[in-house]
């Protein structure tokens, strides 16, 4: 089977600083892959390269969907989203002064097409499209469990709900691959548990592959099929949760050298 996302020797330099060094990564269809590593290891930079916010200095990024393989390097963020990669942000980036529903409706933007004239004359096609955007968005909110907040402003939501709304908004773009940047950051145990179920549920029902960055090791070990560990922009380990937990290089990166060894 062909991987959904294939990253070959990706390198990202900021001046003299090499944030990502020759990183290879693969995400198979319907797989949950975790990307972990200490602070400043280059995980978020990696996401920014894939989603087109940064243009990588070297290496290739390929997305394969429905048997078509496309190179994503140098595409603008909105084109990448259109190809089928959606993301959430580490520091929540919702549209604060828009309602919850409108936030999700923005996600539908790249799958709809009505223009200026349609907006002014409100022809039949535009009206139907608009109705569909509203009902589709509501369905997504129901699925994520945020339907009781529909008309609430995003800024008034409780923290955990804001994180879930980011996921809902990303799902609205109909992605094949979902990138989650620390989805459980700042959540309590119960919220993390719910998130855990949500992520697995998205994978199972929508057939979406998921690549996530996370510091909550319990969550990572529970849901990931495979884990990549990076440190100083380099991949130091790769494997299933059990292998990673026993890997000496990982333990060293996280806890430091054992003085007795």
């Amino acid at each position, binding site marked *: 089977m062909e991987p959904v996302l294939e990253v070959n020797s990706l390198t990202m330099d900021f001046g003299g600083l090499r944030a990502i060094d020759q990183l290879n990564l693969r995400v198979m269809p319907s797989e949950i892959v975790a990307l972990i590593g200490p602070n400043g290891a280059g995980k978020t930079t990696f996401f920014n390269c894939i989603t087109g916010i940064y243009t990588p200095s070297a290496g290739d990024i390929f997305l394969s969907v429905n048997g078509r393989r496309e190179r994503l390097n140098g595409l603008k963020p909105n084109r990448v989203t259109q190809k089928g990669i959606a993301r959430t942000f580490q520091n929540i980036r919702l549209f604060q002064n828009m309602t919850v529903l409108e936030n999700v409706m923005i996600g539908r933007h790249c*799958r709809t097409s009505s223009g200026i004239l349609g907006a*002014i004359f409100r022809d039949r096609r535009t009206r139907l499209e608009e109705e569909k955007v509203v009902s589709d968005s509501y369905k997504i909110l129901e699925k994520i469990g945020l339907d009781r907040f529909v008309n609430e402003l995003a800024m008034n939501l409780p923290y955990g709900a804001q994180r879930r709304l980011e996921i809902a908004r990303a799902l609205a*773009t109909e992605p094949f691959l979902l990138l989650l940047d620390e989805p459980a950051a700042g959540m309590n145990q119960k919220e993390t548990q719910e998130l855990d179920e949500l992520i697995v549920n998205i994978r199972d029902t929508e057939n979406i592959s998921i690549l996530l960055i996370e510091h909550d090791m319990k969550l990572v070990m529970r849901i990931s099929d495979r884990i990549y560990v990076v440190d100083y922009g380099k991949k130091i380990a790769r494997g299933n949760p059990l292998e990673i937990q026993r890997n000496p290089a990982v333990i060293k990166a996280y806890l430091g050298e054992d003085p007795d060894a």
Partner: protein
Amino acid sequence: MSGIFMNVRGELKKSFQISAWFMFLTFPILVIRVNTVENVIEWRWYNMAIVGVSTFLGSALWRYLLSVKEKSQRINAASPGNMTSFQKAFSDKRFFYPALFILIGFVISFPFLFSMYQANIMITALIYVMLGLGLNIVVGLAGLLDLGYVAFYAVGAYSYGLLNFHFGLGFWTTLPIAAILAALAGILLGYPVLRLRGDYLAIVTLGFGEIIRLVLENWGEFSHGPSGIANIPRPSLLGIDMTLTQNTIFTYFVMIGLVLFTIFVVNRLQNSRIGRAWIALREDEIACQAMGIDRTRTKLTAFALGATWAGMGGVVFAAKTTFINPASFTIWESVIILCIVVLGGMGSILGVISGALVLTLLPEYLRAFSEYRMLIFGIMLVSMMVFRPEGIIRNVRRTYTFSKE
């Protein structure tokens, strides 16, 4: 109960301290005066009393308004529906229809009830409503701080002036042409500033506005320079000859029609796929792109569709005054239009309309205080920003209802 009382006493004490401090500070300049003719020192104690009483009252009022604002914020945060009392009254049908009826009656009978002077003022006010609604797209919805909006107004006015001068084109032919030319000018400005935000964008657009004005002023062969273009025809109606009075009334109704058209279009744009994209761009540019919105296209449509209304407003302005020169298109105009949007309420159509009416009609009717105009203007803006930063009428997001299946 006693807690509230203590609070009031504390506030009054602070106001008292402030007034004492002001009396002390102004003592040397306001109280002591050396009379060099008679070589005596005059002690003007009454000035100190005026300073003391006025700062005490001013500070007490300021504190009172701040506490009222805090209270209302607490209430707003608690209730899920984000409507103000004004908007609640507005959505009540028993109140809405009679009010609308009276308003329509007033608007139609206005030029017949009042003098031509009043009608002319109202035409100017309506032009500003149109300009405000146009700039509202750029600043209020898309969040692009544009300080050179007057350039598009000038493009509209000069389009009519020059097309009429050279080719004899009439008002109605020029109106759409000017709208298109202004939209093109909007795109022209939009391209170089795509990457800029906030303050940087403001500076560049400010420069753009000045460039247009300076070109008009100095390129004599093209624009007739500072002497401007005279004898621009007033709006016509099927070639009928009209007296000045009739024409003013006609212009008034043309302007009413154009404003209604603007409201209609802007309202529809605001509640559409494109309008949402603008607001998303204002809220968070990076997230907006990550959601698949083309930043370039969204910004350019905002600039173009915002400029369109300035172009049309410019045509009406040229037709109304029958004379244009670059002096009408200074940075000051841009600032007024921006104030209309900010004071009225960013992104709110009703807010912008009321802002435009307040800011254009008040100076006209307060001519007696014209020396203090800037002072009043300044005080008004500062207090609005402190006590009601969301503007006169706040923008309310649309709500949807769903039936459970």
